[in-house]
């Protein structure tokens, strides 16, 4: 089985994806991930997730939102509008 490896350092950093490894079971995955990914103190906590347990949204599902520019506004139009309304009222 393939396991995805996530590491977290002490403090406020979030878990970050570090790589993957193949192992026959959960315990072996833990034992092997420790020396493959943490032997130089790259993190102080470890998550392993079986790849087949990950719920994936593929590009076909996710991509269409890229062609909706109205969802990508940077707030300038709204800010300008609010300013205009404030000025009109005063």
């Amino acid at each position, binding site marked *: 089985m393939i396991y995805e490896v996530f590491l977290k350092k002490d403090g406020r950093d979030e878990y970050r994806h570090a790589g993957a*490894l*193949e*192992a*026959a*079971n959960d*315990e*072996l995955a*833990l*034992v*092997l*991930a*420790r*020396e*493959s990914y943490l*032997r130089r103190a790259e993190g102080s906590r470890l998550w392993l997730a079986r790849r087949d347990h990950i719920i994936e949204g593929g590009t076909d599902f996710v991509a269409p939102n890229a062609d909706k520019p109205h969802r990508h506004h940077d707030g300038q139009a709204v800010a300008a509008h609010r300013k205009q309304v404030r000025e009109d009222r005063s």
Partner: protein
Amino acid sequence: MTDSTTHSTIDFLLTFADDEHLMGQQHTEWIGITPFLEEDLAFSSIGQDELGHAVMLYELVLELQGIEATDTAIDELAYRRTDEEYRSSAFVEYSTEDWAQALVRHWIYDTVEEQRWNMVAESSLQPLREVSVRAGREEVYHRRHANALLDSLLTSDAARQKLLDALEVLTPLVPSLLAPAPSEQAALNDGVVGGSSAALDSLLVEAIQDRFGVEVSFATIDQPPQARLTRSEHFAPLIGRMREVLDYDPEASW
């Protein structure tokens, strides 16, 4: 400490240190050739841990000898004694290219090593107690690693047979690992160690029964009376490999 106490303590520490040193060397010789990459990293890390334990024990020896524990002094002690001055067991001197043997030996060695650290956890020698805490922590991982692999492999008939064959090859060597330091009784009397290596025999027999479902007996295996004072035929080539780089340029500073 009196001179004779110092002498017996040093002898006791060297017996442990030399096993750690040679076991570490044997494990690290698998780098690049274990059956898969992750195991390559794990197994050589474990080997490095054992080498680290050896260094800590050699440092204690040098301290008792009144020698400053510089890298050069540690190397001198670790690599430059005569064959007779080493106290290693035939069990760790034995070199193998068989992965099943390397794995079973790892499990047996760490089963025994864990107990050896426990036996010095209350030592009258304070720095040895400290070393045992650190090494004991690492042993938890070593044992878990060996057991995880064996748990998995023993479910396959083909792998199980290879492991049992390996156990059969290693069994005659086990008494050498259990053989006490020549000075063990003195170290016991001085409180340097809290238990005798004779106690390890039945413990290991039981552990092997639980682990492999096989009954072994070490008592019936012929053993030289002072096993720790003689080296097996595997020692010379092994120490030769270990000295190879040092010998290449003896004056080099590391």
